[in-house]
């Protein structure tokens, strides 16, 4: 079933009775070539690219809840490729290119809106650092430009430029960055994978990983045992629990990150604005809600809800940056569980168990990575070789100290990212 403008018109005139479910709600078979644990954005995109790029369609995605019910449905929908370090830079560059063709590829409206993202800076030193970052982004082949405070005032007239602890000196803008409709990304990948024969199995919790002679042989689930030649763990905040089933102890600490949305307003914020000094970033959804967030609550948590000190802190940061939002009413807040790695960068790698693959450590930046992560993880599963843009996301970098990617420059240590 394809989507098109004509189809929308036809269905609208005939009572919208012709729409079908977008994917098959499958029941598990006894054996698959590949079992993917985790039906979130990364798991679904991995399944899609396994089928599309590598012709591997005897695949099951096992989800303990419902598809897309985790972080892919709980984030603030920002898409960008403005990383500095080699390793991250080429990965997010590749992912953004996939985003730009995603709707055509999936025949699904993920509502990608390249409205531009602006990272503010507040001192001469920060301007230098942003210029250096901008040059690195351009060297990677992506776009970045420094905006003077004058240019910024014309573009973002609502910011408080002077009367704050951190006067605004300018911003680094990436025009190709923006937002996408997060749920639609999960649904689009689910539909694309399902159409190619992948079984999407909900309410199916993995309770054990079977191994024989150093090789993975399948998984135990709440819906019975499933044999598999290859298994991929793609479970974000729950990575430590699932990896422990295969005897692994991961360099991951799970933290809660909160996000917020206001009631719907007329268009007022046209871009994604990041205020790093205040731990605050914001955009406006197509429904009109101001979607914003801040820093982690900063303690290990699986609660999917945070505490009030961060709520207060984020509101304070928002008020100091753009006092006008004080008139908006907050509608909802929620939390997601972030799989935090010591250096703040992710892991896409094989494990010591043959046939067992690991995708985790996305910290608070997993959404923009969904296409690239699935593409590279599928490549790794299918070919047993690392895909070039993700080749540096090795698990052993913490043990060896080689290839750490500490994008924030705060140190490769838990609790610093």
């Amino acid at each position, binding site marked *: 079933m394809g989507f098109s403008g004509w189809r929308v018109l036809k269905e609208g005139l005939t009572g919208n009775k012709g729409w079908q479910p977008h994917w098959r709600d499958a029941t598990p078979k006894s054996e698959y070539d590949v079992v993917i644990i985790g039906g979130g954005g990364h798991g679904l995109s991995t399944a899609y690219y396994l089928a599309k790029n590598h012709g591997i369609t005897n695949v099951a995605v096992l989800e303990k809840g419902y598809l897309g019910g985790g972080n892919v449905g709980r984030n603030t929908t920002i898409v960008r490729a403005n990383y500095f370090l080699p390793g991250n830079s080429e990965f997010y560059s590749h992912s953004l290119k996939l985003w730009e063709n995603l709707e055509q590829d999936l025949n699904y409206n993920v509502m990608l809106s390249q409205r531009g993202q602006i990272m503010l800076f507040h001192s001469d030193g920060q301007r230098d650092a942003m210029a250096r970052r901008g040059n690195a982004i351009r060297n990677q082949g992506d776009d970045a430009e420094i905006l003077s405070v004058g240019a910024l005032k014309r573009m973002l007239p609502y910011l408080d430029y002077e009367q704050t602890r951190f006067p605004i000196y300018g911003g680094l803008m990436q025009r190709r960055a923006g937002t996408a409709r997060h749920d639609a990304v999960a649904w689009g990948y689910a539909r694309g994978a399902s159409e190619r024969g992948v079984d999407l199995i909900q309410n199916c919790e993995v309770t054990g990983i079977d191994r024989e002679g150093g090789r993975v042989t399948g998984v135990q689930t709440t819906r019975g045992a499933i044999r598999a030649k290859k298994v991929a763990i793609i479970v974000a905040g729950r990575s430590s629990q699932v990896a422990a089933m295969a005897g692994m102890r991961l*360099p991951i600490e799970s933290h809660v990150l909160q996000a917020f949305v206001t009631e719907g307003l007329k268009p007022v914020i046209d871009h994604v604005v990041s205020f790093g000094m205040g731990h605050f970033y914001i955009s406006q959804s197509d429904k009109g809600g101001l979607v914003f967030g801040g820093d982690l609550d900063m*303690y*290990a*948590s699986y*609660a999917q809800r945070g*505490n009030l000190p961060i709520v207060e802190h984020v509101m304070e940061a928002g008020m100091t940056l753009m006092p006008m939002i004080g008139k908006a009413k907050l509608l909802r807040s929620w939390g997601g569980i972030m799989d935090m790695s*010591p250096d703040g960068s992710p892991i896409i790698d094989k494990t010591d168990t043959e046939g067992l693959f690991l995708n985790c450590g996305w910290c608070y930046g997993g959404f923009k990575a969904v296409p690239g992560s699935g593409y590279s993880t599928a490549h790794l599963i299918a070919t047993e070789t690392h895909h070039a843009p993700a080749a540096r996301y090795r698990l052993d970098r913490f043990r060896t100290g080689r290839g750490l990617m500490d994008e924030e420059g705060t140190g490769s240590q838990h609790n610093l990212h």
Partner: protein
Amino acid sequence: MRITCPLCGARDRREFYYSGAAVALDRPAPEAGAEVWDDYLHNRDNPAGVTRDMWYHELGCGSWVVVTRNTVSHEVIGTALARDEKGRGA
């Protein structure tokens, strides 16, 4: 979340700096080897449930506090001074 400092009593979470799992109570010997140090620095049990972690009473008495709490419910189960807990591990 309120945390009971063994010296100061129940205090707001904002008075404390969080440093992570209480593995710090079991710091390996300097010559313990790369594998032991890698495990100590990076790998974590990261439990969904009861955990023990280290909080520093930064805006209070300055003690390091070992907090036993639940990572799913945010319930604080108990606290103790780190100096009394040393060697018990995470």
